[in-house]
């Protein structure tokens, strides 16, 4: 197998497909990031929630709450947090490909949710694109929620105490004090996850999403070339991921205000 200029020239005859594939990958990643981040916020809030329906078990007759003993242990059971924890652990412990196929072949099976065969955003087939986005978002949401939770827990407890001592509510403390500091701490990890989403979106080609990988397959099949289309697509992925991490790094630097001077 050799690499040649004419091989690239033949590959570039498929430029239109690569262009649409690239746009498709961008849309995939963008919707995944948005959906995944919203899911992650919900999961993180669920895991840190303070909902304890069995709390009454620990109540003494004079209105105090017991802190120890079996009843106190049971009273701390939080079903909301439990559900979120199970979800995160299952997603993290199973292959992305399996999750994708379950979403595509089971959840979006035409007997369950029948998507119309229409094209959206110009050229994307909805019945392939949407399951891809949903599967990617369900997956990245679990990882992002762990990042967010770690970030929130990394903020010094004294910050919460100071805010609460001033009379701010739990929600206000989260919004004005904890989250701004947490997001600054976790921006590098979030950037990493965003880059991972762009790269992992390639897997959706297995369910027929016309992304960059699909363009490679088409170019390979049409030209009988193996290497050149792959090199082109590798370069295109790099052009997507590298600026993404650089842009987030820029925001990270800007948020350093107040850290060191």
């Amino acid at each position, binding site marked *: 197998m050799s690499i040649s200029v004419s091989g690239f020239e033949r590959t570039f005859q498929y430029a239109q497909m690569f262009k649409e594939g690239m746009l498709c990958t961008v849309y995939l990643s963008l919707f995944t990031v948005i959906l995944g981040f919203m899911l992650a916020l919900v999961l993180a809030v669920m895991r840190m929630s303070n909902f304890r329906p069995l709390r009454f078990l620990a109540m003494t007759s004079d209105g105090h709450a017991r802190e120890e003993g079996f009843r106190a242990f049971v009273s701390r059971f939080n079903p909301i947090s439990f559900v979120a924890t199970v979800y995160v652990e299952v997603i993290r412990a199973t292959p992305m490909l399996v999750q994708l196929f379950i979403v595509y072949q089971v959840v979006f099976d035409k007997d369950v949710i029948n998507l119309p065969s229409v094209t959206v955003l110009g050229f994307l087939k909805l019945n392939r694109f949407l399951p891809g986005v949903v599967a990617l978002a369900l997956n990245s949401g679990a990882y992002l929620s762990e990042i967010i939770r770690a970030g929130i827990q990394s903020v010094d407890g004294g910050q919460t105490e100071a805010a609460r001592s*001033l009379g701010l509510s739990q929600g206000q403390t989260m919004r004005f004090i904890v989250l701004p500091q947490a997001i600054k701490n976790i921006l590098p990890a979030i950037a990493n996850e965003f880059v991972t989403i762009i790269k992992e979106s390639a897997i959706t080609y297995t369910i027929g999403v016309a992304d960059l990988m699909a363009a490679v397959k088409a170019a390979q099949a049409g030209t009988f070339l193996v290497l050149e289309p792959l090199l082109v697509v590798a370069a295109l992925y790099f052009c997507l991921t590298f600026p993404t991490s650089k842009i987030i790094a820029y925001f990270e630097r800007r948020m350093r205000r107040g850290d060191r001077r």
Partner: protein
Amino acid sequence: MAIADSLIRVTDLKKYYNHGAIKALDGVTVDINKGDVMVVIGPSGSGKSTFLRSLNLMEMPTGGAILFDGVDITKKKVRNEAGKMVKLDIDKHRQKMGMVFQHFNLFPHMTILDNMTLAPVQVKHISKAEAGEKAKKLLERVGLADRADAYPIQLSGGQKQRVAIVRALMMEPEVMLFDEPTSALDPEMVGEVLDVMKELAQEGMTMVVVTHEMGFAREVGNRVLFMADGQLLEQGAPADIFEHPRHPRLKDFLSKVL
């Protein structure tokens, strides 16, 4: 000490850990009156910080009662004016209790001015301009008017603690709680913080101060509590506590710190 002046009435306050194996607070009963400058002293591990932190429920007590404004704030539910049982709104009570921490706990991502105006604007809904005006006046009082737009990291420890004090004052609290406010400071900065506290005391602010500064306790305090092993062993006027200690633990403690 008239009962009518009682601002916070603490009754048999307990804080147990590990099924009562560790008794951080073991039945503390004390009245804090309006205008009191109550200094809490004692060896480390005596429960004095736990006591202070229980007053605004930073620590949830295991037993006992804390009557503040006539409401037992340790209860989850209280009877309102109409006689109905409602959920206790602890945020409302905390607004009336300012707290100053050993490690300042300024918000590092906000300027000094924003640190001070956040709670009044968000909680009391006064305008940002009005809050800023008030913050600048307070900053002027503690000699930091020119640092309003600085970030906490740019301030010295003493300056940070002075900001923390005026930040708490922004909410116009009825009582100020100080949790070892000078313990994390370089020695040369202790004075500037104590001066602010002294001024505050002279203005009649009710204060509860946990400290190792015996000079401050003697000079500024009007009541001194001595705690050890989670119990309140002796209390009285500074002169009595320091000149005529009765309890052997207090005598022992004073012989080590004075």
